[in-house]
């Protein structure tokens, strides 16, 4: 048992009582990071982290994040620290500024010990398209299974107990899917709740800063630290925010929860089905008012193509700054066009390039109406349906994924493979900008799986309260690969 294995709140208590120091924690986290064979790091910041941790002497009683080690997805800008978004096109790029979330955590004196891998430019769900190759699921020592992406490195870092929390980003389901496959919590707050300034964007109308923790209370603590208006992000909201860490401890009296049957029925894994059923019963016992509904299969089938088109259309323009002139991989050529083309073609992998091209294709004059415009209409249709179902409810419950983490070779990275429509439902939260939290639900064949709660915009407070009660029902919170409570007799 190490202090690093506790919740942030518990580690904080130990720090305040001087049972452990930030330096001890940083050293242990770095040791674990170096020991990890799951390819989850772009860079381990040993020198900086130890120097910063050593400077933290007087514990700050009111600051729960003081001296807590963490990692950040490498699409978050870090001043003076290379930031590549796991793409060669940004090789050599050293930001001149910190992302707002990094700056806020620095103010809180949390200790950044490394930058983590992602699917290249956050465009992927398999955790395999980054320039360092595949990131592995720590629950599978044979390295056959994905942790999922795009926030693969951050998910693996938390799922293998390296750090108590990690920053990620979420455009389609990029924190919640990997959280489910890694048996940890993944949070995607309301669009605009956390400043995106300094996040290397994928699709701003869908993007959110997300994060991973192992305890629901930690998830609430993090939002306390990160939420709020930022003058540098004009889309950040000035809607009031709560004291999440305090309020999540009080259970909702009779939470109204809607279960989406067309998603639940698509689950084939008996263990997952069983656990979902048990969870439903337990929620009922706690006084939750449960309702069942169907989203509509034709609508579910529209999620993926809508997402591919809208995210692709946005990324086309946004990532046009990656031309090798101002930063990153510098192209060679006789003309400016050929030099730009060289940087972009060499710098961006084939898989990612295809996502871009599909976006660009959807915007072509001939295709714009049938693809881009139709996708924008579908977005409203899907959002309308989601809000209709959410109306009168506190949250919508779904299995985060239909299966345990698939194998790399079984889940083709081939974009147009007709994914099971029901496995893309987490993206609804991005379309509608709603908060959504994935929690660990259980294990099937030793591999974790999760459940997701999606709530109303800016009502993270309710979601955290639901999550906090639910985590007690499930009883596996805090676990990570190599640290299972039943094995440790907890």
């Amino acid at each position, binding site marked *: 048992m190490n202090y690093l294995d506790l919740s942030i709140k518990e580690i904080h208590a130990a720090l305040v009582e001087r049972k452990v120091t930030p330096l001890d924690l940083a050293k242990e986290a770095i040791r674990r990071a170096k020991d990890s064979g799951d390819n989850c790091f772009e860079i381990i910041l040993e020198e900086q982290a130890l120097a910063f941790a050593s400077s933290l002497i007087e514990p700050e009683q009111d600051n729960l994040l003081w001296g807590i080690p963490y990692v950040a997805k490498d699409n978050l800008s870090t001043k003076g620290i290379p930031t590549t978004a796991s793409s060669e096109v940004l090789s*050599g790029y*050293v930001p*001149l500024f910190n992302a707002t979330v990094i700056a806020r955590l620095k103010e809180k004196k949390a200790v950044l010990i490394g930058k983590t891998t992602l699917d290249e430019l956050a465009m992927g769900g398999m955790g395999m398209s980054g320039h360092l190759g595949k990131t592995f699921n720590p629950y599978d020592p044979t390295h056959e299974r994905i942790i999922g992406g795009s926030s693969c490195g951050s998910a693996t870092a938390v799922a293998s107990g390296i750090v108590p929390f990690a920053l990620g980003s979420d455009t389609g389901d990029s924190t919640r899917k990997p959280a489910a496959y890694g048996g940890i919590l993944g949070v995607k707050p309301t*669009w*605009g709740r956390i400043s995106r300034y300094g996040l290397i964007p994928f699709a701003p*109308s*869908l993007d959110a800063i997300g994060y991973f923790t192992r305890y629901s209370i930690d998830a609430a603590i993090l939002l306390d630290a990160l939420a709020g208006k930022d*003058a540098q992000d*004009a*889309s950040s909201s*000035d809607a009031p925010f709560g004291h999440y860490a305090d309020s999540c401890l009080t259970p909702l009296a009779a939470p109204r929860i809607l279960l989406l049957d067309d998603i639940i029925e698509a689950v084939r894994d008996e263990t997952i089905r069983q656990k979902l059923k048990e969870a439903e019963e337990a929620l009922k016992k706690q006084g939750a008012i449960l309702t069942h509904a169907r989203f509509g299969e*034709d*609508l579910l*089938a529209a999620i993926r*193509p809508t997402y591919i*088109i809208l995210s692709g259309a946005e990324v*086309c323009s946004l990532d*046009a700054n990656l*031309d090798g*002139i*101002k*930063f*990153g991989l510098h192209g060679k050529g006789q*003309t*400016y*066009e*050929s*030099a730009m*083309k060289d940087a*972009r*073609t060499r710098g*961006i992998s*084939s898989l990612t*390039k*295809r996502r871009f*091209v*599909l976006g*660009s*294709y959807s*915007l*072509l004059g001939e*295709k714009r109406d*049938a*693809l881009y*415009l*139709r996708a*924008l*209409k*579908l*977005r*409203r*249709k899907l*959002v*309308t349906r989601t809000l209709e179902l959410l109306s009168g409810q506190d949250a919508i419950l779904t299995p985060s994924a239909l299966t345990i983490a698939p194998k790399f070779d079984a889940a083709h990275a081939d*974009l*147009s493979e007709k994914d099971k429509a029901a496995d893309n439902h987490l993206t609804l939260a991005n*379309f*509608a*900008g*709603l908060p959504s939290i994935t929690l660990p639900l259980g294990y099937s064949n030793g591999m974790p799986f999760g459940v997701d709660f999606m709530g109303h915009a800016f009502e993270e407070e309710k979601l955290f309260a639901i999550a906090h009660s639910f985590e007690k029902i499930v009883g596996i919170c805090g676990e990570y690969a190599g640290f299972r409570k039943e094995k440790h007799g907890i």
Partner: protein
Amino acid sequence: MDEKRETLIRLAAERLLFDLSEEECRILSKEAAELEDSMEEAAKIEGLDDYEPMFFPFECESAALREDEPVAPLSLEEALSNAGETVEGMIRVPKVVER
């Protein structure tokens, strides 16, 4: 039809300044065709055309204008620190013929 799609795929890639291999172009044509099929399927969703296009995740407005106060700019050294070749404090690119 497929030839026309390949032409459009190449145009779409050209707009992004990407070179495409034959293989990439072939895969993309297939992906684009599937995407179009899915969208044709989705077009059958009842009343879809009555929906207004939606760009932001929810109807949001702000009053967030920035007051006109300049901040300290980057130093020249910082500004050029990530660039490739620089000459006389400027970034050098191959000769651009104005168009």
